[in-house]
C-alpha cells in the first residue's frame, strides 16, 4: 500500500476535462495511461484535477477530449524534449505588440511572432464566414418577409372594399378613409411584430436549450439583442405602413360603385 502510494506520488499529474472524467468514470487520484499514438507504450499519470474547459465554438463540433499536462511531461511523452509549438510573451506596459512582433520577426529564423490581435483575427475567420452566411440568409428572409407582408397587407386592406364603399356613400372623406385604413395596417403590423418577437424569443430559447444539451456546452447559439428586436419591429412597421398606404391609396381612388361591386 505504502509502495503504491510512493509510486503514485512520483507519477506526473494531469488535469482532465469534466466530460472525459464523466464518460470514463475517472476521479482525482485515479491512474491513467497516456500515449502519443495508439501503438506506442506511453506512460502512466495520476489525475490531479478535473476542469471545465472554456466554451469554445471552434471545438464544439469536434467533440475532442482535453487533457492538460505540465510542458516537460508532454514533451517527454511526445519524445520531443525542448520543443514547443509556441511561446506566449507578455510585454511591459507601454510596449506596442505590433512593434514588438515586428522587431522579433526582423530577427526571426524558423519562427514568426504575431500580436494576439492578429491571432484572434485569424482564428475567428471561421466565425466570420458563418456570420456572413447568416447575414446572407437574413437578407433572403427579410426579402421573403417583406413580400409576404406587402401581400398580406394588400389583401387585408382590399378586404375592406365594401366598408370603404359604404363610408364613401355616407359622405366620409377619402382622407379619413385613407387614415383609418392606414391606422388599421399599422395596428396589424405592430401586433404582428410583437407576436413575431415573442415567437423569436421562444424559438431562440428552444434552440439554445437543444444545442446546449446536444453539445454539453454553455455556448449561446441564439442571441436576440435589443438592436435586433428594434430593427425587426421597425422594418415590419415600415413595410406594413408602406403596404397599407399603397393599398389604401388604391382603394380610395376607386369609385364607390366599383368598390360596391356595381360599377
Amino acid at each position, binding site marked *: 500500500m505504502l509502495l503504491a502510494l510512493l509510486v503514485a506520488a512520483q507519477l506526473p499529474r494531469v488535469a482532465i476535462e469534466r466530460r472525459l472524467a464523466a464518460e470514463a468514470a475517472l476521479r482525482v487520484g485515479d491512474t491513467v495511461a497516456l500515449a502519443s*499514438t495508439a501503438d506506442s507504450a506511453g506512460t502512466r499519470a495520476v489525475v490531479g484535477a478535473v476542469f471545465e474547459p472554456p466554451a469554445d465554438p471552434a471545438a464544439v463540433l469536434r467533440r475532442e477530449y482535453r487533457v492538460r499536462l505540465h510542458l516537460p511531461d508532454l514533451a517527454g511523452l511526445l519524445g520531443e524534449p525542448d520543443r514547443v509549438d509556441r511561446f506566449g510573451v507578455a510585454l511591459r506596459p507601454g510596449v506596442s505588440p505590433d512593434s514588438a512582433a515586428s522587431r522579433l520577426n526582423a530577427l526571426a*529564423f524558423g519562427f514568426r511572432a504575431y500580436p494576439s490581435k492578429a491571432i484572434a483575427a485569424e482564428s475567428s*475567420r*471561421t466565425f466570420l*464566414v458563418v456570420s456572413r452566411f447568416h447575414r446572407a440568409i437574413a437578407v433572403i428572409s427579410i426579402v421573403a418577409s417583406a413580400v409576404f407582408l406587402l401581400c398580406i397587407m394588400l389583401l387585408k386592406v382590399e378586404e375592406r372594399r365594401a366598408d370603404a364603399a359604404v363610408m364613401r356613400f355616407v359622405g366620409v372623406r377619402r382622407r379619413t378613409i385613407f387614415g383609418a385604413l392606414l391606422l388599421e395596417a399599422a395596428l396589424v403590423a405592430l401586433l404582428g411584430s410583437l407576436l413575431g418577437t415573442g415567437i423569436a424569443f421562444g424559438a431562440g430559447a428552444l434552440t439554445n436549450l437543444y444545442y446546449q444539451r446536444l453539445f454539453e456546452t454553455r455556448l449561446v447559439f441564439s442571441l436576440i439583442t435589443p438592436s435586433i428586436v428594434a430593427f425587426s419591429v421597425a422594418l415590419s412597421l415600415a413595410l406594413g405602413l408602406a403596404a397599407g398606404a399603397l393599398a389604401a391609396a388604391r382603394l380610395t381612388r376607386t369609385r364607390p360603385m366599383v368598390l360596391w361591386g356595381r360599377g
Partner: protein
Amino acid sequence: MGWGPRSLARHPLRTALSLAGIAVAAAMLLDMVMLSGGLERSFADLMLTRGFQIRVTPAGTLPFDADATIAGAGGLRDTLRADPRVAVAGAVLGASLHARRGDSVVTLFAYGVEPEAQGIYQLESGRDLAPGDSAGLLLSQPAAAILHARPGDQVTLAASLDPGTAGARAERTFVVRGMVRWLYDYRGQRSIGLPLATLQAMTGRAAEDRVSLLMVKVRPGADAGLVARSFRERHPRVAANSVADLVAAFRVRMLYFRQLAWILGTVSLLVTILLVTTLLTITVNERLGEIVTLRAIGVSRAHVVRQVMAEGLALTLLGALLGAALGLVTARYLDAILTSFPGLPAAFSFFVPRPDAIALAGAALLVTGTLAGIYPAWRAAGAPIAATLRAEAT
C-alpha cells in the same frame, strides 16, 4: 384552363406579389434542400475523386485531422495489397518543409507520395514522379507562384529551421518534374509533393516508417465497408474508414448546417402555405356570388373544389418556376460564402444543384400549394346557395 387559374389575372398586383412571395420561399426551399443533401454528396464525391474508397489513419483520427502518424506503414500496406479484394493501396505522409526565397523562408505543406498508388493529386502539366526518382518534386500552382518555379527548375528544401544557429536542417535540392492539383488542398494552399521515402528521411520518420494515412481502392464488386471493417478488426491501432464511414463522421460535424437547412426549408413551406391559403381564401370570398351562381346552374361541388385547388396549384407552379431560377443564383452566392471557410478543400461545395434536389423541392412545393387550396376550396364548395345569393343581392 378552367376559370380558377384564369381568375389569377383579375388582380395582377395581388397575383404578382403572391408570386414574388412564393418565388422567394421556393428559392429558399431549393437552397436548403441543396444544402442538406449537397454537403454529403460533395464530400463523398471529393473522397472518391480518384476512386479510393478506404482511408486508414491513426486510431481516433480522420485524414489530416491531427499530427498523429502510423508507424510500420510498409507492413500495413503489404497486408492490404495481399488482400485479394484490394486493387491498390498507397501511403501518404504530410509534413511542413521550408524553402528559401531570396532572404526569406517560405513554409510549404509537403505530401510524401507513392506515385504508382496515389489518390490525392492530378497531374496538370510536366510529368509525374517516376519510380525511384528521389530528386523529383511536384508543385501546386500557389507553391509554384511563391517559389517562382516551373518544371525543370531546382528548389532547395529544408525539413526544419534552427533558430539557435539560424541554419536549416536536412537541406536537399530537388528538380521540379510537374505541376499538379492536390485534391484536398484549400484555396491558395502552397503544397508540394515528393517521394514518400524522401520525405520520411528528411523529417526523421524513416526509421519507424511513419505515414499520415493509407488510401485503398478495392476491386470492382468488393464491398469497401467490409474490407475496412475486417482490416480495422485485425489492426485496432489504426482507423480504417470507408467513404460511407467518413461521410457519417462528416455528417456529425456538419450537423448545424443540415439542421439549419431543415428548419429554413420548413419555414419556407409554411410561408408558401400561408400565402396561398390567404390569397385563395380572400379571392374565394370575393367571388362567392359567382361560385354559388355556378353551383345554382348545376356545376358540381367537385368541379368547384378542383378549380379552386387548380388556382392554388397554378400559383404555386408559377412561383416555383421563378423560385428555381432565383434559388440557383442565390445558391451560388451562398456557396461562395461558405466555401471561403479556412482549411476547406477548394473542390468542396455546400450547394450542389442536383436534379433530384430540384425535383424534391419542386414536389414538396407543389404538394404544399395543392394542400393550401383545401380550406378555400372547402369554403367555396360548402357555401349555401340561396343564402349567399340573397346576401349578394342586398
